[in-house]
């Protein structure tokens, strides 16, 4: 898919948080939480795993109907730039607290099908898995030029291997 990205202006809220506001005045915050603890078996690469969090600033706000394509563009820019270092990897685990995890997973996956942004260098590995009867949608995003690419993918697949 060839698309021109039109991200919203991104603000740095503090050293760990980015924020952006949509044309409808809806404010989102983004952060990357360390996932090193889940990759303890791989101490060389563990510090480079993060999860991506996208949060509505105001929980009471009612989202307008329809899709705001620019939210996707903004997220792709943020995650693409985070991975441009070619050392980090991002694990995305879909929140299942509201029963909308499959729609959330589909949406997230569709966001990274661009070819005109540094994100075109991002490889997406999807591994949905079962954990104690709970079905979990997850993906790994890693820059294909990352020197530890294979190790990172293997470590992620090991982590998300189904319960035996």
């Amino acid at each position, binding site marked *: 898919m060839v698309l021109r990205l039109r991200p919203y*202006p*991104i*603000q*740095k809220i*503090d*050293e*760990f*948080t*980015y924020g952006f506001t949509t044309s409808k005045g809806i404010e989102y*915050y983004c*952060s*990357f*939480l*360390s996932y*090193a603890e*889940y990759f303890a078996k791989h101490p060389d690469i563990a510090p480079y795993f*993060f*999860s991506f*969090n996208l*949060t*509505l*600033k*105001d*929980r009471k706000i009612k989202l307008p109907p329809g899709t705001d394509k620019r939210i996707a563009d903004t997220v792709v*820019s*943020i995650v693409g*730039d*985070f991975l441009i270092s070619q050392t*980090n990897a991002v694990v995305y*685990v879909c*929140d*299942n*607290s509201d029963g909308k995890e499959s729609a959330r997973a589909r949406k997230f996956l569709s966001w990274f099908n661009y070819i005109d942004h540094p994100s075109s260098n991002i490889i997406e590995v999807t591994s949905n*898995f079962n*954990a*104690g*009867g*709970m079905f*979990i949608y997850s993906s790994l995003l890693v820059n294909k030029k990352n020197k530890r690419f294979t190790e990172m993918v293997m470590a992620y697949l090991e*982590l998300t291997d189904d*319960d035996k």
Partner: protein
Amino acid sequence: MPSVSVKAKKTVRTKRRAKAKPMTKLEMVQKMLADQKIIREAIQNGIPLKELKKTHGLTFATLPNPKN
């Protein structure tokens, strides 16, 4: 025979810590989702993420200035 006093060897008592059990897959997923909730609630209550390091031991990536 001269008496020899033997000093008792100083020993340092250390608390034995239970070896951390590896997390099960379910525990891991529950923690991932619980951490997401902690982050969401912190943001929605105006608590800076650096506070979560102190209160919940969560570590975040330090972000550069956005390119825009």
